[in-house]
């Protein structure tokens, strides 16, 4: 059945395969890159694409392909952990709002209003002021931004489920709020969460790039796609390829994830098209 729906949605397959391809490229960089990431060779800097260096070299003579591979890994890891934080805190909040209702729901809604007032950049600035810039702080900032998003999606999806007869039956059978949330609400909003997770993953990759670009995210000697763009900042007018390579990589990854997300939504349930999924900007 899954195979059939996949065949009916070619964009889903293309998107998933492309996104998985980039993720794999990043993973491989843990064991192998064409050149060591930190290998500086000033004599061979600013080289264009050639047989030795498929994507050329940067201002320190480092191999761009190697940097892109490791940078892709960093971007994926930061964005994925940001999604995990959002799911881990946001989904229980959203489910609790529906299962308990009343004061709990009011508190969850006000909390998510409050978090919406702090865009990821502001959170990152505050964290950087407190703890200094770094990958972990970028993850926390993106995670905090994701919490209200998942709380709202989980609540929106669960509200529709909570009115079903089988939930009322479970309540009559003596199940408590927590059991109802875990056994009946959560499994039924999984597809919503997976789709929103894909969207947030792509937004997270954009956010990581932005934060690292302004110096609040990944720090050298580690590398990320955003940090490569920061390095290119003072040189791209003379050497455009320094910014073109990481920039295009980000665009391709995000397009792949968005296509996969749209495809997943259509494949899992066409009706989801109109439920509380938000394509908001980070």
């Amino acid at each position: 059945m899954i195979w059939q729906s996949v065949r009916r949605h070619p964009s889903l397959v293309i998107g998933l395969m492309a996104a998985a391809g980039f993720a794999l490229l990043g993973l491989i960089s843990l064991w192998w890159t064409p050149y060591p990431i930190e290998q500086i060779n000033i004599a061979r800097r600013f080289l264009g694409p050639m047989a030795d260096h498929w994507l050329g070299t940067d201002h320190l003579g480092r191999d761009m392909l190697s940097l892109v591979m490791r940078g892709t890994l960093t971007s994926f890891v930061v964005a994925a952990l940001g999604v995990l934080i959002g799911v881990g805190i946001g989904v229980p909040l959203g489910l609790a709002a529906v299962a308990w209702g009343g004061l709990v729901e009011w508190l969850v809604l006000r909390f998510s209003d409050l978090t919406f007032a702090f865009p990821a950049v502001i959170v990152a600035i505050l964290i950087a002021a407190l703890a200094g810039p770094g990958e972990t702080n970028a993850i926390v900032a993106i995670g905090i931004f994701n919490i209200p998003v998942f709380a709202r999606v989980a609540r929106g999806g669960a509200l529709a489920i909570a009115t079903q007869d089988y939930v009322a039956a479970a309540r009559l059978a003596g199940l408590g709020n927590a059991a109802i949330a875990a056994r009946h609400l959560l499994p039924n909003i999984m597809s919503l969460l997976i789709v929103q997770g894909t969207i947030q993953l792509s937004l997270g990759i954009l956010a990581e790039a932005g934060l690292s670009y302004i110096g609040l995210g990944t720090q050298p000697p580690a590398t990320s796609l955003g940090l490569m763009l920061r390095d290119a900042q003072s040189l791209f007018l003379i050497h455009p390829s320094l910014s073109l390579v990481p920039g295009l990589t980000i665009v391709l990854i995000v397009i792949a994830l968005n296509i996969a997300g749209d495809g997943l939504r259509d494949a899992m349930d066409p009706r989801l098209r109109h439920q509380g999924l938000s394509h908001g900007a980070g």
Partner: protein
Amino acid sequence: MGVFPVTLFLVRRIAGFAATLFVAALIIFLLLDLLPGDPARFILGINASPEAVAALRVQMGLDAPAHERFLRWVSGMLMGDFGLSTTQRLPVATLIAERMAVTLPLSLIAMVVSVVVGLPIGILAAMRRGRPTDTALMVVAQTGVAVPNFWFGMLLTLVFAVSLRWLPTGGFVPWDEDAGAAARGLILPGLALALPQASILARVMRTALVDVTEQDFIRTARAKGLTKSEAIWRHGVRNALLPVLTILGLQFAYLIAGTVIVENVFFLPGLGRLIFTAISERDLVLVRGATIALVVVTTATMLIVDIAYALVDPRLKGRDA
């Protein structure tokens, strides 16, 4: 339904706005208060005598208990007094106002461009639904959503500032010196910010319009003899604008935050650069003032959109958001 539910809605919304700001101010204050390092010692340097540091602490009001300092800060802000920057010796409110003269016009330019570009594209795609024009426009929009705005800014600089030399690569001339040059300096950053927003708007507009055209009143209008595009223009677009309005408000709020990143590409003296300098110089009065200013603008935008929404859509009158 009379005037009363609307008034009630407004009162509740504004009360919520005030409460959000109060809690946000509390969070910002507490976080920055936890910051290691004594601002007084930072200003005087490590060789200062303990007496001098203690005297400056009293002068800066740092000797008072935290709750007193918080209340003094909040009540001061209500009067428009954000305190004195510890490094620049200038009122924080003045510094923020100077930077807002860059940040706000920049966000407005980006918003206007994204509406002017995004909405027609969305409407056109919806009217040509399923045809090649629709597909082509949505491919463009899909790509636009994926482009980081600051990177697009770099590309725009390469094309319009370096190759064509039409516009400056960066920097900013103050409005009162040369308003024309100031505006020219904001064009490229404005376009950079607008691209992803326009793409999102086009997608939302298309979806909303497609939804609306499947509803009964469009069928009624068609039955009355209107052509499809007449029906969409007269009845569809107006109704589809409601969801678009919500997205627009959220977008404007995030645009203001987005300027913090894009102003780095163009070396613009906006709010973001003010905050970064303040952090590196441990100017906490300035950091918290500028941060709360960003939060106020974000929250106020969402409030305005909510109110506009309630006034435009009679179905929502008096309903809890």
